[in-house]
């Protein structure tokens, strides 16, 4: 009751009222010394638990990944020879340009020139595209299709424009062809990895 509090204050001053505050202050001082470290440890333990859980998931999934890897290897091994593997696009474009040039020249197309290079990247594989102008006769075109199908790298023609033009050197007419060639570029894959990671791990909670 209020009057009892008044009497305590009149008789003893703030002595007894200060007791709980002093106790609280002492507890706060003690807690302050340990609370920072405790909270850090809690946080670190929680982070570590998440990391170990992630590791465990990764290792648990590894056998499945290994199976997929083995399955894909049969398709991927020949494919690796058919795409332009280079650390950057520029090198891949140069390689593709040389290959297309060689191919066109081997089919006796004349006046081969390249222009308008571009690429579209999707994850680690890029589609590289380049336009080429060249001249030839109609019989060469089916051979070009066959040659593209047999080329060491995967190559295709995205667009084609053929005009009949005069042939000033030989007289008569010839075909002026503008074709847009496409190929695939892939960055070199990292070295093959050891496959002993699928062993189960024991993670302490």
């Amino acid at each position, binding site marked *: 009751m209020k009057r009892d509090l008044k009497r305590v204050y009149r008789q003893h001053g703030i002595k007894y009222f200060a007791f709980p505050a002093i106790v609280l202050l002492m507890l706060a001082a003690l807690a302050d010394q340990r609370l920072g470290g405790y909270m850090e440890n809690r946080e670190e333990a929680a982070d570590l638990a998440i990391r170990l859980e992630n590791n465990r998931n*990764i290792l648990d999934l590894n056998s499945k990944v290994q199976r997929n890897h083995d399955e894909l290897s049969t398709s991927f091994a020949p494919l690796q020879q058919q*795409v332009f593997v280079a650390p950057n696009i520029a090198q891949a474009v140069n390689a593709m340009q040389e290959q297309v040039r060689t191919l066109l020249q081997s089919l006796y197309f004349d006046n081969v020139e390249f222009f308008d290079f571009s690429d579209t990247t999707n994850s680690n594989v890029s589609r590289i595209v380049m336009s080429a102008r060249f001249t030839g006769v109609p019989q060469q075109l089916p051979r070009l299709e066959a040659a593209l199908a047999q080329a060491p790298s995967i190559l295709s023609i995205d667009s084609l424009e*053929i005009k*009949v033009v005069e042939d000033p050197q030989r007289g008569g007419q010839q075909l002026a062809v503008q074709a847009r060639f496409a190929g695939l570029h892939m960055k070199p894959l*990292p070295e093959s990895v050891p496959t002993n990671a699928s062993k189960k791990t024991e993670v302490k909670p």
Partner: protein
Amino acid sequence: MRNRTPSARRRHQLVLSLLPHGLHILHFQRSLLGWKRVNEAQLPLPEGEDFLPQIQAQLAQCIQQWKLPPGARANWVLAGDILGIVPPSATETSPAAALPFSATDTRTQPDLFSASERTSLMWMHKDWIAEIERISSQCHLDLVEIFARAQLFQQHAARLTGAPKVVIEEEDGLLILHIYASAGMMLRTRILNNQEAKTLHAILQAELAGLNANTDRKPERPYHLVAPVELLANPSDWQGFECHSLETITQADLLEQLWRSDLEGIVVRSTHEGIVKDIKMLSIAMGGIGLVGLGLMAWHDGKLQQQIDDGRAQARKDLPRVEAAKALKTHTLQMANTVHAAKVFRESSGPMTAFTQILANFPPAPATLLYVRADENTFAFVGTGEEASVKWLQERTFPGYGPLTEFPVPEFLQNSNPVIHFQSRKSKPDAAARPATPSPASAAASRTATP
């Protein structure tokens, strides 16, 4: 069955207001939400020698009915006929000198309502205290404090500032007079008998004159008079007073307000040491709980540290295998991407297919192909020929493509007057499934314009 534990005793308190004609009892009980009024009784009392035994009998009956534990605390509120007030003296003499009995025969308590150096004195004869104590103990109550009835209105009166105040209350047909100083200190309290009630103004003037003589002080402003409305019906009866009607508050509410307030009466049994004990216990409990909490925190901290050490060791142990697994995953994903990209690349039928179809379906000479344009979804071609060539073409189908439509002749071919100028767009897959019998591409190739 009554609960006789000390904690049960501390959870009940009674407030008893005694007047010549009746006893008003309030019963308070403490719960988690604080003190709450749980019972109330208004008991009539006979006058005469049977007065005190009747108080005890009626009180005992109430206590039994309410099942109060023995030792519950009792606070009494007594009127001026039992608990008197001695106003502060104008001289330096102690107000105790003005007591009608010897100081050793009375119990006194200064009115500490205002922080004045000279305070009035509540007093009570020890015989009365003994009688109240006896009644209380006979009823298994602990008498703790006795209040003056004037204290019921002390805080209300103190709100009127400036001049001394007079409060006249009416209870059970009795008029009771209370006089307070400007600051609210009690100066006088008394019950008016029937005769006095008829000459109220004169009695009041006499009381005030006596007080003024005693305190040697004349009021600078008219007295505030607080009384029931019916007493103030004729203002001309109260010249020299500033009249205020008394708020209609029930007796029980007034008693509860006094009991809950910090106003102090004559202390018979000190209770505030209980508060000291409670504060000490609270401090010890807080300290104990806090230390236990800190101990638990320290214990858990040790466990966490151990957990962190084990976790780090496990993570270090797993690291090579996890890195290898991650690399394998990346490798596999890249392989899958490449295989998928190559599949999509191969599936896209290029413009060479369209070109082959154009050549295969092109009409025989004299029709001549002048221009071909093809991309992934469309093709167009322009050539010279006859009406029969156009009809030939319109009868042909291009597998995977829709019907031929007119193609605007490019400007550079306008001079050639081409009759054949068609275009088409890739059709839906079901249309693509129709059979076609194109003639060999190599044969058609010879019909393009060449030397």
